[in-house]
């Protein structure tokens, strides 16, 4: 039995995702905020009601299925950024949703197969270099039906009307959705603070309508889907993803940190990301905590594909220098930078030093330092065998 393997399949699949030259107006979706993890909410929407920010990074927010007799593909995204507006107090008969929009970086769409993802993001398909984001703008709702009220939770079904913009194409959508308002409870706290709004729906989109059509002569009908099914699960919160709760971090530093991570992780743009990071590092050259956060993000943030270990080491070294090599949290980062570079001796040296400065440290830092020390010791021991 022969097995075509993922690469063959992907090449075929991507062959169907070619650009359409038809131009179309992009929806007017608000730009990203300075940190990149929320949108700039228009004043009229702030006045209109409660704003629920889409919460990126919490599970799968968007699935995009394509299916043919010979194959089935699912592409997912968990970096959707956006907002929806609801009345502060929803009266009977009132529409529960007043406005909304979201953006998602093309680079964050992934089927979990590197080659497929590269082709999907590439110039022959979604072309992330020219069109880095897909956007959606709500234009209205229809067919609103309350479906129940349980304690303080309110649910509705409705059809969300809006425009999806992919590359230079815009398509009108009408998405049947379930909508649930879940005020904050001690039980929902594990999902973050703030009141919640959950939007769930699915719709089909003809790929041709969003500028993705099979390339003539290269498509296999049994492996070239014409229709994609979009499945949305948007957990939204009144607490912005950019809300800085930490008193020892300035809002500007917090936004810069988010922007750095957004460029690297969500947009997979190491060039812009590390350029921004170097500027941030320069501006924070005398701020050990800011440098430490920068280095730690570069080393450990999930989803960053390109890790500049020299960049991280430089930030961590400076942070350690500023604190006299006595801060356990910073030493833990410095050791991690060496460890990721494969320099086990300095990694172990600094991790041991971190363990010697745990007095008064946050319990979470203490746990991290001790577990990392065990890991490094084991790794060194193994390397010596």
């Amino acid at each position, binding site marked *: 039995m022969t097995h075509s393997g993922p690469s063959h399949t992907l090449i075929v699949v991507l062959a169907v995702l070619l650009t359409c030259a038809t131009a179309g107006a992009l929806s007017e979706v608000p730009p990203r905020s300075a940190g990149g993890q929320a949108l700039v909410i228009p004043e009229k929407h702030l006045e209109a009601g409660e704003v629920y920010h889409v919460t990126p990074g919490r599970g799968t927010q968007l699935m995009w299925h394509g299916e043919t007799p010979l194959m089935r593909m699912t592409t997912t995204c968990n970096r959707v950024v956006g907002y929806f507006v609801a009345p502060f*107090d929803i009266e009977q008969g009132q529409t529960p949703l007043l406005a909304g929009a979201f953006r998602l970086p093309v680079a964050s769409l992934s089927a979990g197969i590197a080659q497929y993802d590269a082709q999907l993001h590439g110039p022959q398909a979604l072309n992330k270099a020219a069109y880095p984001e897909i956007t959606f703008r709500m234009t209205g709702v229809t067919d609103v039906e309350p479906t129940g009220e349980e304690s*303080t939770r309110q649910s509705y079904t409705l059809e969300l009307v809006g425009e999806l913009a992919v590359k230079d194409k815009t398509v009108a959508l009408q998405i049947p959705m379930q909508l649930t308002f879940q005020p*904050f*409870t*001690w039980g929902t706290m594990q999902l973050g603070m703030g*009141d919640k709004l959950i939007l769930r729906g699915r719709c089909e989109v003809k790929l041709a309508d969003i500028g993705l059509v099979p390339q003539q002569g290269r498509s296999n009908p049994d492996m070239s889907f014409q229709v994609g099914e979009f499945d949305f699960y948007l957990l939204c919160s*009144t*607490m912005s993803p950019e809300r800085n709760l930490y*008193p020892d971090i300035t809002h500007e530093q917090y936004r810069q940190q988010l922007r750095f991570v957004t460029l690297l992780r969500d947009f997979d743009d190491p060039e812009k990301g590390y350029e921004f990071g170097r500027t941030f590092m320069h501006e924070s050259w005398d701020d050990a905590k800011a440098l430490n956060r920068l280095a730690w993000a570069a080393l450990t943030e999930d989803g960053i594909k390109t890790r500049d270990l020299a960049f991280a080491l430089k930030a961590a070294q400076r942070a350690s220098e500023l604190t006299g090599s006595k801060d356990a949290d910073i030493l833990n980062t410095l050791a991690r930078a060496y460890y990721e570079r494969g320099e086990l001796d300095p990694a172990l040296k600094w991790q041991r030093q971190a363990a010697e400065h745990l007095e008064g440290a946050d319990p979470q830092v203490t746990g991290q330092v001790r577990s990392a020390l065990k890991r490094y010791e084991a790794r060194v021991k193994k390397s010596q065998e």
Partner: protein
Amino acid sequence: MPRRSSSTRLCVLRQLTLVSLAFMTGGSAAPAFAQWLQWGGPNRDFSCDSAGLADKWPEGGPPTIWSSEIGPGHSSVVVDADTLYTMCRRDEKDAVLAYNAKTGELVWEKQYDAPIREPVLRGFPLSPHSTPLVVGERIFTVGGMTEFHCLNKKTGEILWWHDLMRELGTSHVRRGYGASPIAYRDMVILNTGPNRGQDGPGLTAFKQDTGEVVWKSETFGGGYTSPILAEFNGEDHLIVALGADRIGLDPSTGKTRWRTQVDFQSYGIMATPLWIAPGKLLCTAGYGGGARLFKIGLNDEGEYAVEELWHYLKMQVTHGTVARIGDVVYGCHEGSFGPAFLMALDLKTGKPLWRKRGFAKANVLHADGRLIILDEEGTLALATATPEGLEVHSKVKVLERLSWTAPTLVGTTLYLRDHHTIMALDLGPTANQ
């Protein structure tokens, strides 16, 4: 059976309310020795009878009378004639501070050891949160780790003290003890509740002169909410909100007079209850709690009964202050770290009248027909609040985040602090210029 009021009822409260009768000789209506001797001001409700506030401030803000260094702490300022008192953290010690209220000069500072008592939640300063209480020649303070002191207000000498956690099992609720003491007759009364699930007096009364325990209440869990005193049905009531309990006690004995429980979501209450004479109580809680209005009454058997009149979920004041003007209460909704809204709530209906963005989580203070607003970013504002809306006359950044300390107004002098700076601002007519 309820008894009639005595002549000594709420005498200490009145002492605090009735500011010195000495008035300035220069013809100004402002009292020379106006005072703010306890958390929340004369009536513990963040409303005061100051007059003569400027209509608006210069672009740079109201004139600074003085500004001085201070350490971390949320403890607010109390003012007794020419001296103000507050607390802060100094490394592993707590400090009680006395400043000259007119110049900002430090008069005395009393430090005492206050090592961190695990388990605590770090991330926010574990500095003193509780506001001192001045009665007569004494000042009463509680530090974040539950050390309760009585000091000579002139010298800072410690007259007596208690370790509440060790002696009574008092919880510091992991972020540091936060309730402020209250005086009643010759007693000072404190929250002393234990951690949830443990036994220990919810409140305890101490003799002001000796520190001797006068009474201990039944068990209520520890909490941040400061108790208040109110008169109802010819009796004095000590009212406090602890966990899910909303409680009225006899302040003479600590016996529970009435008690009701709300849903668990309001367990994290921190804001001070607001008494609305003749028999209503407003409690607001953050973290999904919301605002509730209770009616305190008597049932057919002549026993106290509590009825919840309404519950409005979207006015969640976490640890800020609210102010009542007529039938409207004004405060800052801070929905479990969502956006902050200054808002007005109709006490008759429990419905919002308006809400306004533009401030971070804020404390409010009512005086002279104005609302003084201080948000956690250190932005200070002067506004007029009516049932129709909020008109902001002036707005200026004066402090750094997190400015959680409630402002203090004595005459036309406003006292503010954050974790670095304490200051006095002139809100009087000169601020117009």
